[in-house]
């Protein structure tokens, strides 16, 4: 139980933190020229030359390995829904760190997603 709780905490905190860092890196990279494979490849190459990406990636890697461990302990339809507790944390990060406009209907949607996830997680 305690090891599960610790693993879930690590999984969520590193996942959200890593995603926010990568989001900063991707905004700095800018959009791909088109969706043609060559343009997409160039775009991804440009993205991985960004420092923010290399800060975010190790955090996402920790999150990923914790996920592997969690999946070996629990059924997938428990693990994945609980992981979306990070939605509220992510919206707060988006508002205060990434300075995104989180409108009332966006907040309502995020909260509904979390409530839905809690219901799923306790079923």
């Amino acid at each position: 139980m305690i090891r599960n709780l610790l693993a879930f905490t690590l999984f969520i905190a590193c996942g959200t933190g890593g995603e926010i860092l990568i989001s900063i890196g991707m905004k700095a990279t800018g959009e791909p020229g088109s969706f043609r494979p060559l343009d997409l490849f160039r775009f991804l190459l440009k993205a991985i030359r960004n420092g923010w990406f290399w800060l975010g990636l190790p955090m996402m890697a920790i999150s990923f390995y914790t996920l592997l461990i969690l999946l070996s302990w629990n059924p997938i339809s428990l693990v994945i829904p609980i992981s979306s507790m990070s939605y509220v944390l992510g919206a707060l990060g988006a508002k205060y760190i990434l300075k995104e406009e989180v409108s009332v209907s966006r907040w309502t949607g995020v909260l509904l997603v979390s409530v839905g996830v809690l219901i799923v997680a306790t079923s």
Partner: protein
Amino acid sequence: MSREHKVRIKTLLVVLVMVLCANIGDLLLKSGMTHVGAVEISAEGLSETLRLAMFNSTIWLGIFFLVGFVASYMTVMSWADYSYVMPVGAFGYAVNTLLARIFLHETVSLQRWVGVFIICVGVLLVGQTKPATVSNPPV
């Protein structure tokens, strides 16, 4: 078609690819890790699990899909809000529940279906907001 509408369609399409890659990847990993067995937290236990996982083709296929997830995630994040992509991507829980029911034969309770329904309502609410609100990136 307005510019905002085009951006929304483009964003939703890439999020769809992202969600499918993530869910198929997770499903393959779950199936592979079940085959490998429960992880024992000790030096020998972890290295034994890593060794077994490395020679498991289902796990590699799962990793391939998760790489596809990361690539599509990076692509959509280059223009769209994190607070848009993240909750809209939650519709993957509906996909996930369906996949777990159909392919892993896990029992899905009525309560879980209700939760999935509420998640979908939330996703629809976020989905109709403006996908990109930051004109000046923080960095």
